[in-house]
């Protein structure tokens, strides 16, 4: 049987037996998801790539400690989460200087995010995809880490509440509360103007 058809559990068991090739298949299977998860948590590509690499390295080193091989992906996300939390705390204590590549674009986005009456974010129309991504990224930046993490895992990764609770190491009710509060905050941030369409 080819390795590609094997499940995560079977691949993890093979890695535990010393088959490095199986681990590279796990990497290929999960690297994009993990990278996007870390990118949406940190908002920085380089950091996300570092977190991704460190997480896979740690996973390989400690794969013997994974008791339930079928939960490899949650375990991997949890490792990445711990690295992301460390980066988040570093960033909060030592914020890096903002590099603005295009002043005109930044100014325009500032106006957009300032909640001027002519801005109609609610429809999501009238913006280029790049502009919309920056708006969303800046809005997510203003959330506490736990709310941001919950929104990323639920909305982008499509995980169940129970799975998010396992990764975030908290009760399911807390996850639901973080999602509701986080979305409410985002709604306020994105509209600003209470008369906005959101």
């Amino acid at each position, binding site marked *: 049987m080819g390795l590609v058809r094997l499940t995560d559990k079977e691949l993890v068991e093979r890695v535990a037996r010393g088959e490095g090739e199986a681990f590279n298949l796990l990497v290929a299977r999960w690297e*994009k998801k993990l990278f996007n998860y870390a990118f949406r948590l940190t908002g920085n590509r380089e950091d996300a*790539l570092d977190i991704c690499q460190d997480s896979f390295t740690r996973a390989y080193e400690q*794969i*013997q400690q994974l008791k339930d091989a079928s939960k490899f992906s949650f375990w991997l996300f949890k490792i990445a989460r711990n690295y992301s939390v460390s980066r988040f705390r570093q960033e909060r204590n030592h914020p890096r200087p903002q590099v603005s590549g295009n002043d005109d674009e930044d100014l325009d986005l500032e106006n957009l995010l300032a909640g001027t009456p002519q801005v109609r*974010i609610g429809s999501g129309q009238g913006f280029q995809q790049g502009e919309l991504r920056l708006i*969303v990224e800046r*809005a*997510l930046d203003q959330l506490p880490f736990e709310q941001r993490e919950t929104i990323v895992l639920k909305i982008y990764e499509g995980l169940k509440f129970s799975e998010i609770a396992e990764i975030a190491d908290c009760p399911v009710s807390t996850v639901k509360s973080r999602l509701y509060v986080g*979305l409410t905050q985002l709604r306020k941030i994105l509209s600003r103007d209470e008369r906005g369409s959101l």
Partner: protein
Amino acid sequence: MNCDESRALFADLLGEEISTSNAGGLKDHLQSCADCRRELAGLSRTRNLIEQGWPEESIPQNLVFEFTQPSVPGFWGLWERSGLARLGLATLTVTAGLILCFVSLALLQTHLTVGRNGVAVSFGRTVGLPSAQVDGGAQAPSSLPALFTRQEIQNLINQAVLELEKNQEARLEQASVQMDARRTADLRRIANELRVLESTQNIVYRETLSNQSYVETLARDMVLKMNAPSRVSQ
């Protein structure tokens, strides 16, 4: 269902994990509550905007790991995984400690004696000394045949002390005699040396006198020789 109960279900609805029964109750409430309807609509649009605003990206560079030393669990892997490693380590530690303890006791020549008065511990080599006679001459268990009373032992000790003192006096006397003899010999040697010195000084004195008279004679002859030619020339 009131507004608080309704809002408590918003997360379930937005997370697409709401149960059928809760969905029915929420739907009923929303039909009659404009505030909740408006809030839910705003949250739903926010959710959609967030979801569409940041699509998934490709990873900038694919990760490939090289494995130079694959981890082979084998016997030791199973040993560690089953938690037996800690137990084995603890057993080894205890065994090593006991061995070290026994070796130390053997090196210290420790003797443990269990008697009526309890346990006694002694160190070092024990010598089978004869036990003192106690209880009016009751013979103590000993392999030596000689038995002495305390008085006899005391007498023996006194006798030994006296002999030692006598020996000491004799040695002192002998040493004193030897010292006197050495002193006398030294004095004689010094006297001889002094006599030799005196005779030497006498010889030197006589030689000095002889030299003096010889010099005087030579001087007189020279004076006479100097005066003699002048008379001839006249």
